[in-house]
């Protein structure tokens, strides 16, 4: 472990990695500030540019940009009352009243410090839990990996959506798209229809750009048109500095909210919007309990409470640490953004799954350090450039959207100098727009696409080595039980509470 720690530190302090992280943080912050674009869009847009990079450099670039999006989004949530990223929706509840009271500078400071602190707590949790998971993943063979990947896709498709059926359809479609091209086991091409482009299968980058970037760019135009005419407010450095101390004056709240974020992040498939709302609800409940006993600082949640900014902002940055844990250790992304990051693994020649942690613990540690440094850097950049960031909002959408679309087309074409990739971006853009409009889970489709080859290969190996009896392996049964318990934990919890209340009565 110490060797991996040293390796991780050495990997991170490579000049290329440092330069890429320094470049990625402002990009992620700008993406966060712009309503309509999210961390997913940032990852989708940056994904084509990691080709040819070293694995650590490419992953650090993607992770740094993704991790700081919600930090940038908090600014828009407070100043405009619109969540810059979906994860900032809970910040608006108290951010908007604070702006009305003229305390937006203090709120921005609190949000930035809470984001940085939450990010660091998330990384501490990640580094503490990684060594605990290492012996577990070392026990994984082909049957366990197959079960984990297949059930992971199913769980992610089901959890966190209004309609689980649509999530499952999206996941099945993603898995089907992954079957195009050369099959890994026999080397025979599938579904290529005498069309050379399909021989190598569907390419990941056009799919990611089409599904996540194109619909978001359209969304950006719509959002920008909606907020047209809204003014922005300046805030003084002194107010921001005062706000920066807010999470440190409430250490218990910051720690509790961050831990909620980490836990939500660990559960695969639960959306990034859940953690801030849970943390906000927990903080509100605790404040009400303290007020009832005569304690607390007399802040009323929903009417401009600084604690109402600290809680969601701590949790939405801390959740990335938890989400990265399952992504690195099990190959199961804890959030939609992590699903795109898994795509980055494939592009950089790394195979996600339980074997990754065993073989590349140094990269895992390096990514944890990246997450921590990116969060700190984001706070510094935001304090220094908040007024400049707000000016980005003034750029008309009819300039911004085409510029991003040009980036999308260049990114798609540059990967393999293949014109059909550009066509594929627009076809998948159409599919992405449709999925967004009808509530089909795009991350589920992507995850199905990424994990399908792994599922097929490990199914083949499992059948060869154990026959159909592989489903009765203890590890397989344990994973099934664990994931089913995770899937139905709320019902189980309700049953347990009912049972305990009956036995108590």
């Amino acid at each position, binding site marked *: 472990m110490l060797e991996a720690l040293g390796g991780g530190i050495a990997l991170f302090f490579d000049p290329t990695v440092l330069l890429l992280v320094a470049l990625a943080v402002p990009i992620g912050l700008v993406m966060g500030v712009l309503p309509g674009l999210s961390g997913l869009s940032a990852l989708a847009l940056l994904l084509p540019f990691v080709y040819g990079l070293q694995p650590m450099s490419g992953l650090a670039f993607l992770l740094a940009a993704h991790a700081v999006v919600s930090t940038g989004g908090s600014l828009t949530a407070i100043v405009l009352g619109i969540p810059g990223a979906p994860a900032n929706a809970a910040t608006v509840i108290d951010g908007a009243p604070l702006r009305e009271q003229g305390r937006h500078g203090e709120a921005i400071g609190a949000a930035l410090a809470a984001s940085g602190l939450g990010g660091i707590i998330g990384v501490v949790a990640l580094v503490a839990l990684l060594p605990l998971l290492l012996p577990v993943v070392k026990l994984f063979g082909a049957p366990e990996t197959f079960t984990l990947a297949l059930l992971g896709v199913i769980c992610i498709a089901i959890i966190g959506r209004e309609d689980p059926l649509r999530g499952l359809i999206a996941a099945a479609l993603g898995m*089907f798209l992954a079957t195009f091209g050369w099959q890994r086991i026999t080397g025979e091409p*599938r579904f290529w229809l005498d069309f050379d482009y399909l021989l190598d299968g569907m390419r990941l980058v056009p799919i990611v750009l089409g599904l996540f970037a194109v619909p978001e760019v359209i969304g950006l135009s719509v959002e920008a048109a909606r907020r047209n005419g809204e003014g922005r407010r300046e805030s003084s450095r002194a107010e921001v500095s005062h706000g920066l101390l807010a999470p440190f004056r409430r250490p218990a709240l910051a720690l509790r909210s961050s831990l909620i974020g980490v836990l939500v992040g660990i559960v695969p498939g639960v959306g990034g919007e859940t953690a801030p709302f849970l943390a906000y609800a927990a903080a509100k409940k605790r404040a009400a309990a303290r007020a009832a006993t005569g304690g607390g600082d007399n802040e009323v949640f929903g009417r401009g409470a600084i604690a109402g900014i600290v809680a969601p902002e701590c949790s939405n940055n801390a959740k990335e640490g938890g989400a990265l844990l399952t992504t690195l250790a099990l190959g199961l992304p804890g959030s939609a953004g992590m699903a795109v990051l898994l795509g980055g693994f494939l592009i950089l020649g790394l195979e996600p799954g339980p074997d990754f942690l065993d073989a590349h613990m140094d990269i895992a540690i390096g990514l944890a350090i990246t997450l921590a440094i990116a969060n700190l850097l984001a706070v510094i950049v935001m304090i220094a450039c908040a007024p400049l960031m707000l000016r980005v909002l003034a750029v008309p959408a009819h300039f911004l959207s085409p510029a991003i679309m040009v980036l999308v087309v260049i990114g798609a074409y540059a990967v393999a100098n293949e014109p059909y990739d550009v066509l594929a971006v627009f076809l998948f853009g159409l599919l992405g727009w449709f999925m967004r409009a009808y509530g089909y889970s795009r991350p589920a489709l992507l995850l199905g696409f990424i994990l399908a080859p792994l599922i097929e290969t490990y199914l083949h190996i499992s059948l060869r080595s154990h026959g159909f009896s592989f489903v009765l392996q203890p590890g397989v049964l344990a994973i099934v039980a664990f994931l089913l318990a995770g899937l139905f934990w709320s019902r189980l919890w309700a049953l347990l509470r009912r049972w305990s209340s009956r036995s108590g009565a």
Partner: protein
Amino acid sequence: MKQTEIVFLFVVCAAAVALCLHGWLVVGQGPIVILPPALIALALVVLSAVRVFRTLKITESTAEGALQLAYWQALRGSFLGLLWCLSAAPLLLLLGYPIGLAVFAAVYTRVNGAGAFAAVLTGGLAFAVVWVVAGKLLAVPLVLLPGWLS
């Protein structure tokens, strides 16, 4: 709007099933190659069928929804209906005809002395016209059949 989703699901399922059948019957791929995608395609068909049924069930209270549900139940109960759902017919109608005729129109005009731009324009026009017609044809079982059934 709901019909768009239903048509989308039909097209996706039909394309998946058609590709698997093509791989198995035309290319002659073995079970190890074709079985995994075939199982995924089967899952897609089953899940989409449940989704369509639920969508129609929700709109049962409207006159149009009730008719569509009746149609769907009739489809579910007949072998020919099942074949329609599983066949590549919706895909051929939606994509095959417009693309095929557009290419034919473009090549025909080019061979007969038209310039490249004019040929592409003719092909595009043919595609647009046939796309609209094919869309209407595709809607036939969803729109007209419930009327006949009622």
